[in-house]
Structures are given as C-alpha cells and as structure tokens.
C-alpha cells in the first residue's frame, strides 16, 4: 500500500481504531482459514485412501518435527523483530527479520527434501493414489504460502533501507507480514498434528 501519510489520513476516519490494512488482513486470513480448512478436510478424507500403495507410513516424523520446530521458532523471531523495530532498534529488527526468513527457508528446504525423497525413493507422486494427491496439494499449498511469506519478508527487509519503518514511524508493514506469518505457522501446526502425528 502507499505511504504513512495515507495511513494517517485513513486512521483519521477509522471507526474501530484499527488500521484498515490490518483489518483487511484479518478478513483475508479468515478466508484463508476456510481455504486450508477445506484442504485439510480433503486430506483427512483421503488419509487412508492408498489403493495399496504408499501411505502415511512414508512420512518422516523426525525430519518434520525438526522443521516444525524451526517454523514455530520463526514466529518468536517475528515477534522479536517487530518489538525491536518498535523500540527503535533498526539493527536488531533487521537481524530478527533475517532470522525469520532463514528459518522459513530451512522449513522450505526440508519440504523440498521431503518431496524429492517421496517421489524418488518412496514412489509417491500426486497420481499414485489419493493419499499422495491430497498430501502434495495440502502441503504444497502451505509451502507456497511460506515461500510467498519469505519473499514478502525480504521485500519488507529491503524497504528498511529505503526509508520505511524507521524509528518512530508506523510499523504497519511489519505488522502485516507478521500477521500473515503467524497464520501460516498456525496452519502448519494443524497440518502437522492432523496429518503427521495422528
């Protein structure tokens, strides 16, 4: 969206005291909840639909537990980054933001490894059976969300060198990507619990 001036202009009219963009993000995430909800339901319906082929047993709990831990930790880093920016510490804000990106990339790396492993060694592709199709669809869409999040974080980080989010300014841009990032984490908790653990 546009610059801070615009934001102040709109806040002037805000009926709830919330920033328009944050409210919009909440509405978007509400929609996303239904999106992932539907995907998770499809996955649960097809969880044991393997046609005798590879199924839930191919999932690597150790690796995924680790990447899950990394992703959850990244949410903490996101909180710390926002706090740092708010406290006027541009340096620590940037460092934590970079950490979030790094952890997101580690998670994605784990997923790429997992997918490759499944396709090459476990012979599970989207067309193998519906367990595979639903798994790749759900986890793939989540992965795409993480990837978009990393790109977005990178953009926000770059803008800290272009005069945005300086001490004393409105931190809406960081709050927005933070909301999104926490949501994507939360979705992963649901996926990990329902698909991997149970």
């Amino acid at each position, binding site marked *: *969206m*546009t*610059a801070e*001036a*615009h934001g102040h*202009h*709109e806040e002037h*009219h*805000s*009926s*709830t005291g*919330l920033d*328009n963009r944050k*409210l*919009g993000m909440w*509405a*978007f995430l*509400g*929609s*996303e909840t*239904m*999106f992932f*909800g*539907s*995907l998770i339901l*499809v996955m649960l*319906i*097809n969880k044991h*639909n393997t*046609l005798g082929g590879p199924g839930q047993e191919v999932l690597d709990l150790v690796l995924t537990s680790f990447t899950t831990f990394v992703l959850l930790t990244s949410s903490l880093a996101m909180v710390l980054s926002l706090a740092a920016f708010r406290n006027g510490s541009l340096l620590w804000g940037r460092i934590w933001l970079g950490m979030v990106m790094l952890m997101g990339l580690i998670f994605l790396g784990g997923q790429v490894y997992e997918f490759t492993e499944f396709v090459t060694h476990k012979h599970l592709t*989207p*067309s193998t*059976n*519906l367990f595979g*199709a*639903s798994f790749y*669809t759900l986890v793939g869409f989540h992965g795409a969300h993480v990837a978009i999040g990393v790109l977005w974080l990178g*953009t926000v980080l770059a803008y800290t060198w272009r005069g945005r989010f300086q001490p004393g300014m409105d931190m809406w841009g960081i709050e927005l990507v933070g909301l999104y990032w926490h949501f994507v984490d939360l979705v992963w908790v649901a996926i990990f619990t329902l698909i991997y653990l149970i």
Partner: protein
Amino acid sequence: MATVTATAPDTRTFAGTAWSWITTVDHKRIAVLYLVTSLAFFMLGGLEALLMRLQLATPEADVVSAERFTELFTMHGTTMVFLALMPLSAAFFNLLVPLMIGARDVAFPRLNALSYWIYLFGGIFMNISFVAGGAPNAGWFGYAPLTDTAFEATHAIDFWAFGLQILGVSSILASINFIVTIINMRAPGMTLNRMPMFVWMSMITAFLIIFAFPAITIGLVLLIFDRYIETSFFIPEGGGDPVLWQHLFWVFGHPEVYILILPAMGIVSEILPTYSRKPLFGYAVVAYSGAAIALVGFGVWTHHMFTVGLGPIADTAFAISTMAIAVPTGVKIFNWIATLYGGSISFKSPMLFAVGMVAMFIIGGLSGVMLGSPPIDSQVQDTYFVVAHLHYVLFGGTVFGLFAGIYHWFPKFTGRFMHDGWGKVHWLLMLIGFNLTFLPQHMLGIDGMPRRVHTYAADMGFDLWNMMSTVGSLMIGLSFLIFIINALRSIRHGEPSGGDPWDGGTLEWTIPSPPPVYNFAEIPVVDGRYPAWDIKRGGGHTGAVATAPEAGAEADEPDIHMPNPSYWPIVMAAGMVLAACGLIFHQAFILLGAMLFVISLVGWIEEPAG
C-alpha cells in the same frame, strides 16, 4: 496525494476520457463500470436463455444442436450468477456503501479497481471459449466426473474452471475491501445499529463471499489437478469420489444463493421506507434475520443432494436446517409488509419493482419449502420445478430487486430521472413475462420434465406449458430492451433530478447528484438511522448532518485529498488473466502474465503517494 482538480477527468479528448476511466479509483466511476459491464453480461445470458426457450418452444425442435444446448445452459447459469447478478450487486456496493456510511471512498481504492478489472477480463476469458473450441458444457455446477478429461477432452471445462477461479479472486478482494470499508470507515455517529439496511446486507454478503468462496476454490483446484496432473480426486477408478465435488460445490453454492439475494433484500429495505415515508419496521430484526439466514445458510448445502443417496439421517438433518431458514426469511417479508402498513405509499417505478420483488420472492420461498422436504424433492429435484423455483428466487427476487435499485439510484448516478412511464411499462411487461415464463415450469416439473434436456417428445404433455414459457421469455426480452432504451435516453435527456428526488432518508440524498468526487465536503456526523429525514423534518433527532451545500459548491471547490488514479490495477488484472490463458493456449502466456503481474506489483508498491 493530489487535489480534486488534479483527478478530474480530462474529458476534452476521447483518449483522455478513456484513460480517466481506465485509471480511475473513484468508487462511483467503478460502480458505473460494474453496472455497464454486468448489464452487458446480463443481456448475453438473457440471449442464451432465449435461444434455449426457442429450442424448447416445440417438441423435437432443431433450433440449436444438442451440443450447443449444453453450452447454452451451462453458460447461461454461469453468466447470470457470476457475471451478471453478483457484479450488478457489486455496482450497488460501490456506489452506495461509501455514500451511505459517510465516507469519501472505499478503504482500498486501487484494490477496488483491481477487482473490477479482474472481473471484466475473467468474464471475457470465459466467453472466449465460444470461439476457441467450445464453451463449458457440464452445467453451472459442473458435476464430476462429467468434467473429467475422460468425458470432456477439449478445453471447455478448463475455461470454466480457470474462469471461476479468476472471478473468485475478484469477489474475495472486493469483499475484503467492503468489509473493511463498512467496519472501519463509517462517519462519526454511524454505529452498526444506525447503518442503512443495505449496508448491513452488503456486509453480510461480503462475509458470506470470503467464507464461502474458498470451498469452490479448493474444488476447482482439485478438478484442475484431475484434469492436468492425473490425480483422481473425483474419479472412482483412482479411489476418488464424485460426491466430494458436490459437497465442495454446494458448501459454496448454497451461501452463493444468499450472496445473490441479500443485496436485493437490502435494496428493497431502503426503497420500501422511502416510498411509504416510514422507517423500516423492525430494523434490528431485519438485520439479525439477514445474519441468521447467512449463518444457517452454511448448514443446508446437502439439500441440493437429497437424491444422491446420503441416507435418511443426513436427509432428515438437512431437511430440518433447510426448513429453519424459512423462518428468518418469512420474518423479513412480514417486516417489509409492516413497513408499508400505515404509510403513504407512492408508486413510482422503483417502488413497483421493489413491491414486485417482495411478491415474487414469496413464491420462490414457498416453493423452496416444498423442495426442502426430501420425499417431495425426490420427485421434483432436477426437473423444471427446480428451474421455476430458482428463477422465482433469483429473477423474481434478485433481478426485480436490482432493477428497483437501478431506477431508484439512477438519479444519484446521473443527476437525471429515468422516464417513469416507460419504467412502469418495463415493470408490467417484465412481471407478466416473468410469471408466464416460470409459473408453467412448476407444472412441467410436476408432470415429469427433467431440466437440462435439449428436447422432449410430443406425447409427454409438455407442449403447451413450454410454449407459454417461451412466449413469456420473449416478453422479458422485450421489457429489457425497453429498459435499455429508456436508460440510454435518460442519461442525456432525462428530467434533471436534483440531489434528493425521492425524499430519501439516508446520507447519499444529502449530497448533490451526481456526487462530487470527494462525496462529502465535510464528513457528516450521524445520530439516527435516517439522517436526511431528520434534517428535512427537523424532528426527533438534532440532525447534525453536514451536507455538501449545493449552492456555491462550484465557486469554492474544497481542497480535499483524494487518491491518485492508477493504471497498475488494470495491468495486474491483465497479468492474472494472461497467465490463465497460458494454461490453455500456450505456455508463453504464463510467462508474460507472470511478468506483468510482478511488474505491476512493484509498480503498485512503488507508486508515489503524492
């Protein structure tokens, strides 16, 4: 940020005018774009319907081929739902929501423009299919596995699936925009409890859209995967289940019915009070019943699937929830009648359409109760009885309601009246034509005529009803023609209306017509449900509404900051639709579309703030 003078359209040249429309972020101009586009698609969908009616006028006719007929009913349904009625409602959201809540624009003006352009390009994209190898032909709810490559190897279904995805993006973005606008941009004093009923219904509709559309998005994603990467989500041979598609579709599809009807209900809830000079009766109950309809509307979807064989327990549960919806719907109608009771009712054409909406929607609601009972449904499901029912709801309800809105707010859009006499002719012809078309279809269904048949035998006893229906549909067509001529003529030659021609009660009638770019010279302060009435009548409330004074407005143009025009929305929309073309025509388009998308995204973010 620029001043008003900088954004004023340079109408001296054609190119300047066109450019000003292409780059506009003004909600009122976007409303006009939505209105014109959706009426064009309405005409297209209507022509498709007329072709079908001509084919069915007589038994074993040969007006169109069986193949063409399947395309016609698929595209008629898809066009009317997604390209005509939803965007026509969006035109009203755009025009009215900011004006009614006392705002200068929507929360995200550029996003608003983006929604429109995606809709326009998506609609064109879907209709290109007619000349690109065959239009979608599996019905507007595209039941699997008929949509699989095994049964439709051409791109017909791909046009439909990608087209709906594109339109879904447009709807969700627009809805987020209006949710934020309504929640966050109300004028001081405009509490939820004082919002005009149309704004209430707009907000509920927007919430329905953001929560209902993801289900069909997922359904379409799975369908596209089935078609493109050989998964078998809906294909029994691969372990899939065609019924899953039906669930995903109707979890969206039933709320979609309320998405189509609630805005019309909102319009009627504004018009009835205006022309009877009485506030809406039972305001809170009407608002809450709208919310109740929306909420329960998420729990009734399998009444579209009573004949699928889900078992008596599921059928019972969903019959009960379906019946339950009749209660809040009935309550709305009773409150409308109570609004008229004791009023001073003036029968201008907007009022006639609004009353027509109430009268016709009642019939659709009553036949809906019949369909809600599974044993009855088992006989008339997938027959012309259902066709009649859904048209009484969506034509008798939505179309009548939206036309009421067009006649009522036309002066607000243009500053001129539509011709009232011709408006009444339009109304009478449409009312008679509509009933002549769809009443007999109830009988056709009960007498055993399935829907979606391109022909019927002469010895089935269907002839007369079908002929009546066709005659009626031609009358509807004629009435629409009268409307178009009236509208086009009235834009230039209509009688000037002034700012408040109907003695309206809501905020939009306190400003000039057409409204200035900034809407309100001074943001009004509201302390009642009908602030304009309060000012004019001086009673009840203190009437602290600030209006844009019509006198001297030209001389002293206030310096109000409005958002800049932007061409990035149209570029981004073009990028998205080009990428979809790439999945059908040539991969190069994907690359091109993605490039446009990225460029416009960067441009969007970088756009100078003024």
